[in-house]
């Protein structure tokens, strides 16, 4: 579904991602983990066309989207929830959802999608006219995920959606992701600080260290490899 080959990318002239190759199959739940500053966010931003790509290629559903503009990639049914500023704070909840589905031309389809999203996150139904900037942290993340789902993505990329959330809210949100994957048949790439939690949900994992792919495999393989845990994920993750 998504294939990254020998990617070198970064900001300005600085390469942060150094030669990463990695593949996501249809229906996967990929956990992208690694220490702070390892380039997790940069890697997903590269997929969305938000960085400078120096070398390598990115293919999504058979189309080479390397160096495409973000606006064009957004129409490829590739959903993205950024880490920060992931809603329109001055717009209402319902306007946020509506603009999430701006690429869907068909009115009925949009209404249908909206119903499904609201079903997943009932909290969004209760206050359609509230400004997104006034939502609580958890609600805002749910709105951000809902907004991304409004574009009917085949692949949903989430950049640390649980950062700065209370553990119980984070847990709820992650459970929703599992639900989304099953019910809506969406492939998920989840960037997470909490490696153990993410790996427990995922069926594949990618460990990124200093812009390089340190390990790829199933969660079991990663959690059995004591070296990787000790070196990259911290003792507590065991």
């Amino acid at each position, binding site marked *: 579904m998504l294939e990254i080959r020998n990617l070198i990318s970064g900001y300005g002239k600085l390469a942060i991602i150094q030669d990463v190759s990695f593949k996501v199959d249809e229906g996967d739940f990929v956990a992208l983990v690694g220490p702070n500053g390892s380039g997790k966010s940069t890697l997903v931003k590269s997929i*969305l066309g*938000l960085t400078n790509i120096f070398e390598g290629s990115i293919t999504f559903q058979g189309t080479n989207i390397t160096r495409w503009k*973000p*606006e064009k*990639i*957004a*129409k490829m049914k590739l959903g*993205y929830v*950024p880490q920060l*500023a*992931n*809603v*329109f*704070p*001055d*717009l209402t909840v319902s*306007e946020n959802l*509506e*603009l*999430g589905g*701006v*690429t869907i031309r068909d009115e009925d389809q949009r209404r249908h999608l909206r119903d499904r999203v609201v079903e997943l996150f009932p909290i969004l139904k209760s*206050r359609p*006219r*509230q*400004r997104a900037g*006034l*939502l*609580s*942290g*958890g*609600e805002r993340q749910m709105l951000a995920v809902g*907004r991304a789902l409004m*574009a009917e993505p085949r692949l949903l990329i989430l950049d640390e959606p649980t950062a700065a*959330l*209370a553990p119980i*809210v984070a847990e709820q949100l992650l459970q929703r992701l599992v639900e989304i994957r099953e019910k809506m048949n969406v492939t998920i790439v989840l960037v997470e600080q909490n490696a153990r939690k993410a790996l427990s949900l995922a069926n594949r994992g990618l460990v990124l260290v200093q812009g390089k792919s340190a390990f790829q495999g199933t969660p079991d393989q990663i959690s059995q490899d004591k070296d990787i845990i000790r070196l990259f994920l911290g003792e507590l993750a065991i």
Partner: protein
Amino acid sequence: MLEWLAGSILLSLFNGSIYVVVSLGLTLTLAVVKLPNFAHAEFLTIGGYVGVIVSSAYPDNLLVIGAAAFLFCAAIALAVHRVAFKPLMDRKVSIYILVLASFAVAQFIRYGVFSWASVAGVLSATQNIKVYSLATLYNTELTNVYALAIVLAILISVLLELFLKLTTMGKSMRAIASNFDLARISGINVPRVVDVMWIIAGGLGGLGGMVFGIYTTVTPVLGFNTLLDIFAVVIIAGLTSFTGTIIGGYIVGFSQNTLMDFLHYYFDVSFGYQPLLPFALIIIILLLKPTGLAPSSQTGLSLIRRFARRSSSNPKEPEPPKE
């Protein structure tokens, strides 16, 4: 007593209405593309001159003249955006560079108009639109120009509000203003929305200039002379608030007329100092409350809704639940 007051208030309302129409365009520019466009006032000049030309062919036909002023200035604004501002914004240059560029655009337009007006012999011109009295109140004549400006300001405010709140294009515009990067990756066609924004901004400038040009003589510095007044309005408004712009427009209008008359008749201040009043407003606001007098990014409907909620049984804003 106070025989000047009624006329002065009417003039304040008229001037304020012009400021509202013109400044709403500037507020839009500031909100959506974050550009303090010092060339915005030049649209006023162009609109005034379009009024002069078109009114000579279609005298008194306000609809045609107004549409021509709107469309011509919209085209100029779009051209300026494509030629000057877009190349700079695509490179994400600093705001200083953008401000300098807008000064350059303003100077180019201003002296372009000067050159043309000098050749055409219209360095000082009037529009061929009849001004007549509709009613007389307290020895003050309510002319059709005053009524036109006031009605236009209300109409434009309401239409703009509905456009921004109810149409997908308007919502996209607010989304770009609210979070530019997210708007891009959400698949909103940002270049197209920004083009529409420039069309509206330039058009409103031209429309305001055309109406102002019925009242006053059109000269190539018509816009430049109101530049700082318009900036006073948006600074009072906190740069991006539409409700604030409407309030600010009338504050500047009243300060320039009613307050000035008051200072003149009671403190013997010369009318020559009139332009200093908006300047004083700018300095005071920037020093005391740089966020402006209005709550930022709040448009009229939501403000009304808030008042409505406050007066209904549920007096409190819904508090964001704490976690």
